[in-house]
């Protein structure tokens, strides 16, 4: 006779701000003792921030968490581990050259007189491996294991300290369907043993395969928590997408669609096998939608020559362009604004002028000598044109805001005068006002007859500015939509399509 399930977590009003972004806003959430609770939401919805607060990596700004009836505010990961809360991250954190046993007990190796007690270590870890159903000698070094086995070792490690709560962050992202079946059996077994499981996944089908309840997050807000038996995939998708955004995007009809300016044929990225083909016309903005890790960024980097590719051809204005390095791409009129601005896009400790001229140095030099006055002149022109807020052309980029830094990256490529511009998450971490300016600029570039490709995880954004959207899903192109057929739910389900199919394929 169960009256009311006991709550292991009671979260009230949880809020977390980052500079310029609210990652979590006033979240109320209860997790029941012994349930499998699934968290879903788009990229940036707040799932990982929530997890990071629970395991002590971030501290909340407002709100309280009660854990087993007591106030809980971990200052560091060790606090969470002591409380019996463990996380298995998507990226595995194993020490590859140590044995399974050493990895499992790494944080508290059994010792005898200051020396590692290897016998005890082996016996204890054998027990842990049995619990997760892994029949391998605990002496095996981790680098000899497959990904699924490593995942199980991670879980064994997480369980080794009498864990009461196990958080799994996209555990199935890299597993085959057979391995997923095994994992689910183990998860169900853990549940029987009384472990509470918080499960994050992009594969919506899995919610129904193992979840008891599901919570949907969107833009840092909790949309709803539902019993999995009382909800359907389309309902969940609708909750994830939310209502239509107001038109803060300056969509305009194509002024003049030119002929094809850029085409990719059967491009295969390294470590992948699905050939990708698409094309862009002059004056067109092509949006690339899809989840993080769906192959969007990888494909663009391979096109640009930033990463090696297995095969595939790239055509600019109908002529094949052989691209072996970014140098070939830039010389052929293609540029890429990388996702990671600070690491890959700009030189933080050098001036605006240096960064602006970086891709077009021969224009501000003569026979190997810099023409500084011309460089300053050009930079000043772009600072003016793009209304970049900087006291002078000599200011280091480190001291500019994210939006202004991004504008300098834009200035660099505008100065280079490329025919095809690829933007990877150009508005990430940028405030709304500057975002709008960047959209306007994209439009201006399109009107000049450039071919524009924009990757974005922000669906309303990409729908607001693109003429056409190509959707990536699990390394494939799962669909294409013209502007007139844009529909958030349709695009989102295309983004999930290949992952859901995986799930169905497994079931049948």
């Amino acid at each position: 006779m169960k009256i009311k399930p006991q709550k292991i977590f009671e979260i009230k009003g949880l809020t977390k701000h980052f500079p310029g972004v609210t990652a979590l806003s006033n979240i109320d959430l209860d997790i029941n003792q012994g349930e499998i609770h699934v968290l879903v939401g788009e990229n940036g919805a707040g799932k990982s921030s929530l997890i990071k607060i629970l395991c002590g990596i971030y501290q909340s700004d407002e709100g309280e968490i009660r854990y087993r009836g007591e106030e809980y505010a971990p200052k560091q990961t060790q606090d969470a581990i002591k409380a019996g809360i463990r996380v298995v991250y998507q990226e595995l954190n194993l020490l590859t050259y140590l044995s399974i046993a050493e990895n499992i007990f790494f944080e508290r190796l059994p010792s005898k007189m200051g020396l590692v007690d290897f016998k005890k270590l082996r016996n204890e870890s054998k027990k842990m491996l049995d619990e997760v159903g892994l029949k391998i000698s605990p002496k095996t070094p981790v680098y000899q294991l497959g990904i699924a086995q490593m995942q199980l070792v991670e879980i064994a490690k997480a369980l080794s300290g009498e864990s009461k709560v196990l958080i799994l962050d996209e555990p199935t992202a890299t597993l085959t369907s057979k391995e997923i079946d095994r994992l689910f059996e183990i998860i169900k077994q853990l549940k029987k043993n009384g472990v509470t499981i918080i499960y994050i996944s992009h594969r919506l089908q899995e919610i129904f395969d193992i979840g008891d309840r599901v919570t949907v997050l969107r833009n840092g807000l909790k949309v709803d928590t539902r019993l999995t038996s009382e909800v359907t995939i389309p309902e969940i998708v609708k909750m994830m997408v939310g209502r239509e955004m107001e038109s803060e995007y300056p969509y305009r009809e194509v002024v003049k669609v030119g002929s094809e300016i850029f085409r990719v044929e059967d491009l295969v990225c390294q470590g992948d096998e699905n050939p990708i083909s698409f094309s862009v016309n002059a004056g067109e903005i092509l949006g690339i939608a899809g989840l993080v890790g769906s192959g969007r960024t990888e494909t663009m980097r391979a096109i640009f020559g930033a990463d090696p590719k297995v095969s595939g051809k790239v055509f600019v204005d109908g002529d094949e362009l052989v691209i072996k390095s970014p140098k070939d791409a830039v010389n052929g009129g293609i540029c890429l604004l990388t996702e990671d601005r600070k690491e890959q896009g700009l030189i933080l400790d050098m001036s605006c002028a240096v960064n602006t001229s970086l891709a077009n140095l021969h224009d501000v030099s003569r026979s190997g000598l810099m023409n500084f006055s011309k460089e300053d002149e050009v930079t000043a022109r772009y600072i003016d044109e793009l209304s970049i807020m900087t006291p002078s052309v000599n200011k280091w980029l480190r001291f500019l805001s994210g939006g202004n830094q991004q504008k300098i990256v834009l200035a660099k490529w505008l100065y280079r005068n490329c025919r095809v511009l690829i933007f990877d998450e150009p508005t990430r971490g940028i405030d709304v006002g500057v975002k709008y300016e960047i959209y306007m600029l994209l439009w201006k570039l399109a009107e000049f007859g450039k071919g524009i490709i924009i990757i974005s995880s922000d669906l309303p954004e990409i729908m607001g500015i693109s003429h056409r959207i190509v959707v990536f899903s699990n390394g494939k192109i799962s669909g294409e939509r013209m502007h007139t057929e844009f529909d958030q739910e349709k695009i989102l389900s295309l983004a999930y399509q290949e992952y859901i199919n995986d799930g169905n394929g497994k079931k049948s």
Partner: protein
Amino acid sequence: MYVKKLISPMLREAGIGLALLLLCIVFAIAAPRFASPINITNILTQISINTVLAVGMTFTILLGGIDLSVGSVLALCTIIAGQIITKESLSVGPAIFLAVLGSLAVGMACGFFNGYVSERWKIHPFIVTLGMLNIARGAALQISQSRTIFKFPETFNALGSVNYVGIPFIFIIAITVVLLGRFILNRTVYGRMIYAIGNNEEAVRLSGHNPSIYKVLAYVLCGAMVGLAAIMYMLRLNIASPILGVGFELRAIAAVVIGGTSMSGGKGSMVGTFLGACIIGVLDNGLLLIGMGDFARQIVTGLIIIIAVIIDTYRAKISIRTEAY
């Protein structure tokens, strides 16, 4: 705008210059002989070779690399140049000319090896140049049969002792090299690329450049400086020997680091390097004059290197903080 561009690195250099000035004043008071014209000529002679090596080293360190092989390569260069210059079949003029050319060629070849191997197989230059340190030393010993070469032409030897109003000929070479290095770093596209790559190689690559070419070139330049320094050393000592130059790489690195160049690359200047070399030379000379022994001098020099870097690290942090507001 343009003025400001010049001023900010100059302030950095001014600090090191001030340290040098203070050091000179202290020594001049403590040891009256320090400021005598003869001693000054002496110091200038002593710092010349390290200055030239440090100029080459600055290029590699600005790129986040290093060249540990300069001392050994210098020995190898002297051996090659020494063999050419003492060839009896050559008349004096061509012999000197070919010896200089030979020394430069050997230095550049070793530099190319260092740069190419580290770029082609993505090995840290620390390792490659450490290998070259052994290779060049071994080659020098092998080629010379571990014998010292002397009896250089008189005209050559005489050149070594030439000085104009107390300024030695080899110091004029060193100053010319510093100014040339400064010109390359500050005024040329190549110099711009060195700073850019040193700061963020990936961003440079993704802007459509091939950083490897620039990096290999820096090692070749460094090698050329070694070849030149070898000739200067021969002018000074009038011998060529396979055991010359032991530990020279460390003195050159010390000069670069005291001069304010960051070991992680991207920040530093040629004038700073020159002032760093001056500080080391003045310390060596001044400490000797106030009667400090060889061993104690090494200890003090070591401490100065560490202190200089600590000061520089703090200064860099403070300037970033104040710049931000």
